[in-house]
């Protein structure tokens, strides 16, 4: 892993912005498109040289340097412009396309799963598809059932799609750069609650994460590799995106009770880094998988099944999944809080295994 080289405390959003800027500078085939990506900037009739810069401000300011051609506002036509991303990627460009919330996949899934995911295979390998899709996920913002989903499990179901979920500013920048450089379609899931956090705030203890600061130079975080966020010997906690923070919090609590906890930050939902997970479990002999996605047919199930099948004889207790319940995301604050996986539930599950 690249090492931190300075003390810049970028937010996740700023780190993504930097990754986009640097990849666009270094490769003129890279461009970004989506709704409000420029956000009304760069058009003469409006006279605004900068505007939204994306719904989460990930593309803020880019239009000034790269112009409206490469920082391209789209109408609200996800199928149309994701399909256009596929066509552009198949013919020499490297588009980064924004799907504002993962819950909107349903209007454009065909372009993602039937074209982006399958073209290379269907065409016998005679094509590459360097398409990056970025989308936002997660509950906790009073956005209710349609705007709070996680859904990487859904995409991971499909062969041909690479799915990554950064957990902080450091991994965001590195995974964006890896994704844009990949010749496969990659979907990057940005958790809404992470985007405003600095690398520093993402890391609150000793030796946690590898992202205390974000290096200015370009670096890759490798796709398909999980990161051992904290080493331990008594139990393994697996976090994905925001739940890595939940796992860290739980780890701290468990450590205060005298346990040695290993936290795995999954980073890649597909391909899955089975090796890192299995090695960890073979050492700790117990695992809690913490996932905000719906529980059925999910990556949490995959990991639980993987561990059960491949490390059966090493386990002292069955694997445990801590996920959202099998319900849509509710609006009301107390219900939404109840909906999310918490440190408490992770600690409880871990103690159930440890004791």
């Amino acid at each position, binding site marked *: 892993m690249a090492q931190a080289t300075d003390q810049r405390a970028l937010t996740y959003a700023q780190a993504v912005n930097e990754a986009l800027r640097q990849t666009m500078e270094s490769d003129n085939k890279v461009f970004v498109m989506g709704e409000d990506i420029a956000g009304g900037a760069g058009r003469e009739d*409006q006279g605004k040289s900068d*505007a939204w810069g994306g719904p989460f401000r990930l593309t803020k300011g880019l239009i000034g340097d790269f112009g409206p051609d490469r920082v391209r*506002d789209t109408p*609200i036509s996800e199928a149309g412009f994701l399909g256009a991303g596929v066509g552009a990627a198949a013919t020499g460009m490297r588009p980064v396309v924004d799907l504002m919330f993962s819950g909107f996949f349903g209007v454009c899934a065909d372009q993602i799963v039937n074209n982006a995911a399958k073209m290379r295979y269907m065409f016998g390998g005679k094509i590459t598809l360097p398409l990056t899709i970025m989308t936002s996920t997660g509950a906790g913002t009073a*956005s*209710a059932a349609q705007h709070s989903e996680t859904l990487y499990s859904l995409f991971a179901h499909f062969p041909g799609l690479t799915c990554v979920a950064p957990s902080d500013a450091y991994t965001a920048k590195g995974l964006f750069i890896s994704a844009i450089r990949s010749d496969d379609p990659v979907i990057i899931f940005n958790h809404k609650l992470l985007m405003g956090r600095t690398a520093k705030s993402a890391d609150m203890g000793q030796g946690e994460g590898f992202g205390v600061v974000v290096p200015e130079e370009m670096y890759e975080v490798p796709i398909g590799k999980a990161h051992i966020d904290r080493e331990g010997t008594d139990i393994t906690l697996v976090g994905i995106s925001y739940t890595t923070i939940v796992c860290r919090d739980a780890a701290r609590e468990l450590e205060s009770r005298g346990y040695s906890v290993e936290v795995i930050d999954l980073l890649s939902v597909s391909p899955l880094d089975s090796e890192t997970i299995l090695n960890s479990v073979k050492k700790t002999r117990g695992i809690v998988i913490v996932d905000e996605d719906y529980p059925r047919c999910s990556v949490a199930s995959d990991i639980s099944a993987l561990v059960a099948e491949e490390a059966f004889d090493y386990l002292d207790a069955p694997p445990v999944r801590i996920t959202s*319940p099998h*319900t849509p995301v509710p609006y*009301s604050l*107390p219900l939404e809080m109840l909906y999310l996986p918490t440190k408490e539930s992770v600690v409880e599950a871990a103690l159930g295994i440890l004791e």
Partner: protein
Amino acid sequence: MATDFIIIDIYKEEPGLDMQKIDDKLLMQFFETMVTIRLFEEECRRQADLGKLRGMHSSIGQEAVPVGICGHLKEGDYILGNHRSHHHCIARGVDINEMMAELLGKSTGTNRGKGGTMHIADIDKGMLGANGVVGSNIPVATGAALSAKMRGTDNVSVVFFGDGASGQGVLYESMNLASIWKLPVIFVCENNRYAEATPFEYAIAGGNVSSRAEGFDMPGIQIDGQSVIEMFLKATPAIERARNGEGPTLIEALTYRYQGHFGGENPQSYRTKEEEEHYKSNDCIKQIRNYLIEEEVCGLDDLTRLEEGASVKVEQSVKFADDSSFPDDKALYEDVYISNS
């Protein structure tokens, strides 16, 4: 600033507005409802500032559109809304106590606190739900119209969506379906010039939505959405056409949103103050207020009474919501899987 809207009106040849078709009581009701919407939305903003309401899309400025349209509706008719839908709900008669309770996440809310601002629904009142996915409500409205037709009623369904939603293909799928099946649905596009930060002139080829109707064999009409009287009267043929089984109509209502897209967002990052002032000077409530006074439909004291009444009701809605409890924990698991729970 952006150029003003150019109105395309397929009914232009017809004589001017026939004010006979709209009685004084209705006009005063329109005023009252529009004021209620405005005050409700302003109150929501306050509730948000207090941290009790976690964000919403304000409909201030667009009150006239649903109020004019809903003036035609009767029991059994359905409307559907989008992410910006408080004005639709109130125009259709949804209880503002229950709406405020919903926005504050209370168990007495229209949706028991489980839907919130983007999903307010009250089937009994004919509000078949707001919807947070742009365009997603449009085919559902088409289905409600299909149902009305198959059940042998003369009910209609009305779907409100924004200029931005014209980017979604499902609008054209639905227009085609409604047209070949002659369904009683009215597609109402509220063109408020922006989809988030994106101006409609940029996003919509040809610069208007209404003229797309023709290719789908149905009337398409633009109406000045700042005039509730125009909204009501010019929508008449569309409603009649639907009730008579002659099929759908596409209405593009030209309007403006005063606030930012969402919550406290500042719209001046993508539009000019000048433009905002231009539209605000033509405010829909001001217009109907002036009309009521100038045409001596009623007196100033009547208006004041209506305004104060609305204000009291909005205040009460907050009290109602505040006095209500949050849903029980078990509500999290309810309302999913009837057959198997």
